[in-house]
């Protein structure tokens, strides 16, 4: 029977494969963003030829590493339809506590310090997760409150004092400035975390359940996914990454203050949004988040290189973020329309 109805099955198969390959290119949702980054990089390079030099690229990636680590955590939070406004405060808190501890015990092993920072962050994140999943608060409200609380605790602990570079041992500062295999530690840490995350999100059951909870909580619940546990996990991971970033931040800038990273949560959220992570949940890819973080990194790096007055940088950044997001939307609309037109009915 099949032979009669489909005379040339192999041909049809080939055709389907061909179109689906083309479609998969169109389906790369961050196409507009990638194009934008390339155009931007070329434009900056034309104005200042040192932009694409190896040294500057290295600098740029080093400076973007912390942002990209945080953006990963924020991505999984956003995927579950949540948001975490408290990360900047967690950075400050973990940075302040670890900085005070290392300044009191000068010969503490840096690995131990990093672990300590992660634990502090995870506790903070666990509190967020508890408030969101068990108590049932809206994420934006719960993390708004904990943002205030963690920031307040940081100020309390610091007593209004800074921990400056001369109080920090060499081993601590070298966490962020040292090199492994000739590559800056920050970059190495970011790459390792990205690899772990790539595996976790795409190839483990829990990772896929995060997407399931985000795209449709009801059906996730019905199909036996423990939603509360996933939410708790997601916020704890976010907290852990923020705690890690706190240590890296303090080590990189060699000072811990009460207002460390104030307002940084918005930059991280901006990177995620630029990378196509949907605030409505369920959608977001690691490739997009990398591009989003890179775009923000380029903006931070390129504007001073172009001798743009520091007072203009904020406005230009805001305009470019808006422009990039809107352009990405328009490209997506075009792609969707194309896909619809090519669909055989």
């Amino acid at each position: 029977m099949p032979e009669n109805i489909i005379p040339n099955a192999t041909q049809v198969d080939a055709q389907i494969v061909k179109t689906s390959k083309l479609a998969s290119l169109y389906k790369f949702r961050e196409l507009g963003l990638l194009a934008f980054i390339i155009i931007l990089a070329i434009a900056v390079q034309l104005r200042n030829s040192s932009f694409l030099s190896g040294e500057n690229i290295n600098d740029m990636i080093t400076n973007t590493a912390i942002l990209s680590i945080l953006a990963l955590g924020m991505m999984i939070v956003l995927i579950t339809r949540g948001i975490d406004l408290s990360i900047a405060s967690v950075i400050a808190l973990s940075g302040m506590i670890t900085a005070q501890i290392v300044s009191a015990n000068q010969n503490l092993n840096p690995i131990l310090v990093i672990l300590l920072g992660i634990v502090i962050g995870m506790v903070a994140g666990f509190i967020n997760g508890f408030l969101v999943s068990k108590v049932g608060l809206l994420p934006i409200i719960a993390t708004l409150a904990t943002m205030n609380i963690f920031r307040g605790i940081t100020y309390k602990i610091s007593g209004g004092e800074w921990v400056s570079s001369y109080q920090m041992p060499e081993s601590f500062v070298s966490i962020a400035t040292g090199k492994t295999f000739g590559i800056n530690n920050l970059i190495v840490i970011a790459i390792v975390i990205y690899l772990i995350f790539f595996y976790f999100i795409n190839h483990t059951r829990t990772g896929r359940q995060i997407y399931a909870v985000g795209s449709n909580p009801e059906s996730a619940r019905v199909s036996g996914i423990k939603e509360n546990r996933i939410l708790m996990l997601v916020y704890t991971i976010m907290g852990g990454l923020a705690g890690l970033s706190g240590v890296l931040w303090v080590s990189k800038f060699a000072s811990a203050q009460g207002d460390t990273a104030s307002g940084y949560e918005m930059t991280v959220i901006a990177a995620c949004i630029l990378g196509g992570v949907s605030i409505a949940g369920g959608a977001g890819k690691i490739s997009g988040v990398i591009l989003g973080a890179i775009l923000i990194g380029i903006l931070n790096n390129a504007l001073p290189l172009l001798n743009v007055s520091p007072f203009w940088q904020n406005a230009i950044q805001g305009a470019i973020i808006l422009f990039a997001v809107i352009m990405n939307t328009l490209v997506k609309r075009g792609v969707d329309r194309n896909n619809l037109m090519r669909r055989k009915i």
Partner: protein
Amino acid sequence: MEHKTELDNQGYIQRSLLDKKEFTFKGFFLQWEWMLVIILIAVMIINATLSPYFLNYPSLRDGTMTFLDKAFIVFPMAMIMILRDIDISVGSTVALSSVVMATMYNSLGVPMELAVVICLVVGALCGLINGLLIIKFKELSAVIITLGTMILYRGIAYVILEDQASGNFPEWFGFFGWGYVYGTPFVLILFICVAIVFGVILHKSTFGREIFAIGKNPTASRFSGVKVDRIKVIVFVLAGLMAGVTALFLTSRMGSTRPNVANMYELDVIAMAALGGVSTAGGKGKIIGTVIAVFIIGYLQYGLGLINIPAQTLLIVVGALLIFAVALPKVRLPKIFRKK
């Protein structure tokens, strides 16, 4: 709204949608607003026991001047949150309109009366841009758009004034921040008037009902003829306009302005609205609740400031209060306390 099911005289089931809940005393006293009143009284008692200077009329009256300026934004923010959106650019809008007003007066020689009007216009314009972008690009949520404009507006303020401060306003301009009308601070009178206007708009007008309808179900309201886009734009313009009003009072109270004023105001305002019982999930909220919440947070900060508790501790207190207040109705209480 609830369904009422009854049999008509032919024995068919009649369902009618009640527009208003029937009035019961139990329902009346189990409202969230009473909880807020209790919290407000508790704040008053705590403050009064901590400081002898708190609980007297001049202190309570003049205390309002310290916190009411940002409270104007709470009302349109409540509307926006009822619409399931959020506007995080309001703090930057305050800064931009304040900076534009100061520059108009000091550098361009515009008369102050006109500069005040320009301040309001700039605020409304910022809101209009937000609103238009939000309805043009529906795939992007309001968080994304206003995150972008938040950075942009603040950036423009920096472009205009760089790191300078701008002051030297005429004498009468101080009236906004420090003036009295019949022994009552002008800002308090205006705040109450604005609250009444917004209360009437939100709870008594068609426009207000439509806002709730959109918040409950945007698709259904669109199909039943509610002009969703127009309402959204109007509400965002209102938010911008109120940010302009806040800029007036803030600038007047401080006597000068800088590009970094009103930093993080958006989060304060969202916290006040959330404490007042407005849900960011949309469709729920009352103006009276936000008014009480404004006074709770305001008097808490003012009272603890009187006994020299540092601002950092206040952060913890306000955060804890927010969690406590929002979490309370979710906790399983004995049956008679449970919120309906």
